[in-house]
């Protein structure tokens, strides 16, 4: 297993380099100029000098390699320095600088990450907590009223986009009923009971909308996996041993059914960090998704490149995690 993880990690490095090339190349080809938002009074020659100083006119390969060096080597080292309060080397190294904020992009990302992980993480956890029991009961009582309702709700939940359900939730629960605020206030600090209640209240709508969306697909998946296993011979064997129905269901059917489901869940983890592009806009959560959209609007190419690369790297990482988890859950999978 260790050998497998090591090998996969080794393969991940060229994969990430290739991904970085593609991301960098696509965004480099995109039209845009880092000086375009500067005042028009700046003369042409000065503009050109600014461009030159930012390295915009360097050959593509140079720009790419410099960026790779910054993202893959300089930024992690700076992160370690900050986390552990140490200085590595001279402490002087070039960083990926945002064209908008003029500061290191990583610092902006670190500012935005908590909001996103908080909302997305809760939606992820609630989604699983809803989806798995619903899937299990739907499969066990196939074609029952519960199953029919579950099927209907998850079909709707999956096919209606969150920008619609989100707005609908705002209209109903904020505008008409006034139960919850219509937007997420990231400046709110939880210091006492009333601010805690306010925090819970403002998180209900975005988490609710996103967890329903997550749960919709996952519950369908759990259901079909359960149905596949319920008709297996070993379930009959378990019953013939005199086991209680609950034990048959949980220990035998669910254990086998969760193998593909857990893999799917592991693959969704990067989404916690990547944020929800649209839902964050609707509830005005200034998280990663919001940052990505505004950077695209502002032509902040280094920010977009770095964010895209981070999401890609997380996806590669959790692909590996999914494979490892798969191997731990299913003894038939051998990696050596």
């Amino acid at each position, binding site marked *: 297993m260790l050998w497998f993880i090591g090998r996969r990690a080794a393969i991940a490095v060229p994969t990430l380099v290739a991904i970085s090339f593609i991301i960098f190349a696509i965004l480099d080809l995109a039209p845009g100029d880092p000086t375009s938002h500067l005042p028009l009074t700046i003369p042409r020659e000065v503009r050109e000098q600014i461009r030159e100083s930012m390295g915009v006119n360097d050959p593509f390969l140079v720009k790419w390699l410099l960026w790779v060096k910054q993202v893959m080597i300089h930024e992690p080292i700076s992160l370690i320095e900050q986390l552990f309060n140490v200085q590595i080397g001279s402490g002087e190294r070039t960083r990926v600088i945002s064209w908008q904020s003029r500061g290191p992009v990583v610092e902006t990302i670190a500012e935005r990450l908590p909001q996103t992980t908080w909302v997305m993480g809760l939606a992820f956890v609630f989604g699983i907590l809803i989806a798995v029991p619903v899937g299990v009961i739907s499969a066990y009582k196939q074609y029952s009223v519960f199953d029919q309702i579950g099927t209907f709700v998850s079909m709707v939940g999956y096919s209606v986009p969150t920008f619609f359900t989100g707005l609908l939730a705002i209209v109903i629960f904020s505008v008409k009923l006034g139960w919850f605020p219509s937007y997420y206030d990231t400046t709110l600090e939880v210091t006492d009971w009333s601010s805690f209640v306010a925090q819970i209240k403002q998180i209900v709508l975005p988490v609710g909308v996103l967890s329903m969306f997550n749960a919709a697909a996952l519950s369908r998946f759990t259901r079909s996996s359960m149905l596949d296993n319920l008709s*297996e*011979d*070993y379930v*009959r*064997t*378990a*019953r*013939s*041993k*005199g*086991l*209680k129905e609950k034990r048959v269901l949980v*220990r*035998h059917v669910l*254990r*086998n059914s969760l*193998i593909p489901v857990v893999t799917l869940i592991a693959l969704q983890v990067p989404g916690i960090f990547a944020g929800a592009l649209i839902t964050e806009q609707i509830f005005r959560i200034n998280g990663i998704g919001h940052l990505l959209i505004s950077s695209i609007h502002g032509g902040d190419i280094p920010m977009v490149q770095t964010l895209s690369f981070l999401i890609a790297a997380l996806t590669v990482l959790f692909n590996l995690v999914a494979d490892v988890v798969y191997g731990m*859950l*299913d*003894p*038939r999978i051998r990696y050596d």
Partner: protein
Amino acid sequence: MTVDPTPVLRVTDLTTRFNTQDGTVHAVNGVSFDLADGEVLGVVGESGSGKSVTMMSLLRLIPTPPGEILAGQAIFEGDDLLSMDLGDLRKVRGGKVGFIFQDPMTSLNPVVTVGDQIVESLAVHQPGRRKAMRLRALELLQLVGIPSPEERLRCYPYELSGGMRQRVMIAIALACNPKVLVADEPTTALDVTIQAQILELVKGLREKLGMAVIWITHDLGVVAGLVDRVLVMYGGQIVEDAPVDEFYAQPRHPYSQGLLASLPSATSRGDKLVNIQGQPPDLRSAPASCSFAPRCPHAFDRCDRENPVLAAVSATRKVACWLDEVPVLVGAQSDETAKGQVGHGR
């Protein structure tokens, strides 16, 4: 073999149906039989004749829906298995009646170790300390002849061969010293040498432990070597119930005769194998006539009007056939005329 006269299991008029989208399938139609203590009962018949469904209905292991046990009684130790509450039935399942299934490849949970699957059964019926149950599991693996059982306890089913897995299934079925062992074609999925080993194993275990065995099979050779009494099933009904030696010497039902005649023989070379003409009955309608009549060489008008009931023809035998005197075919395999008679249908 001396047979205890009081049956350990008495099944009367068992009727099971499956309500499918294509209509109702009458899988088991009024099956009645007794199983004596310590007896080995062979149940034979073609695929779809209701052998497995009958036995699974006894422990209510058929999926409901679509299955439905419509009528009948199965008296086991004074209680009716078909009407007792599920909690009591669970004590019988695995505790007093052990089940072995056809396909050992799929009948064990792939992600649970062999040891845990045996212990699980013990934990339900004879709960004890975990260590003691592990020890009992080890003992069981030794009993069913698995080499180096300590290691095998920690194995997953995929790490064992088909024969070994079937031995594990037998160990699970025998874990709690059942009174009855139901073996549903346990050798069908195995190759011939392993079949023989499993057969010998069950024979030996039966002598050692003294439980009654119901052995479902379509292999008449297996029946001859193992069982005391034969039930022949056709179209969800029992058509013949006879002690094994009498059955082979003198099959009474035309279907039994056909089955025996279709056995390949070692003495007649180069002939085409004899078969019973026609198709097994369509079970989508309730039997109103003899379900074998369309294939029977001796069918006459009464067979199309009434469904024959299983009736005693001697102290030890029962046959469901309207023919008073079914033409007797002695030594069906060597008799050329018998082959012709049975083989050509009508």
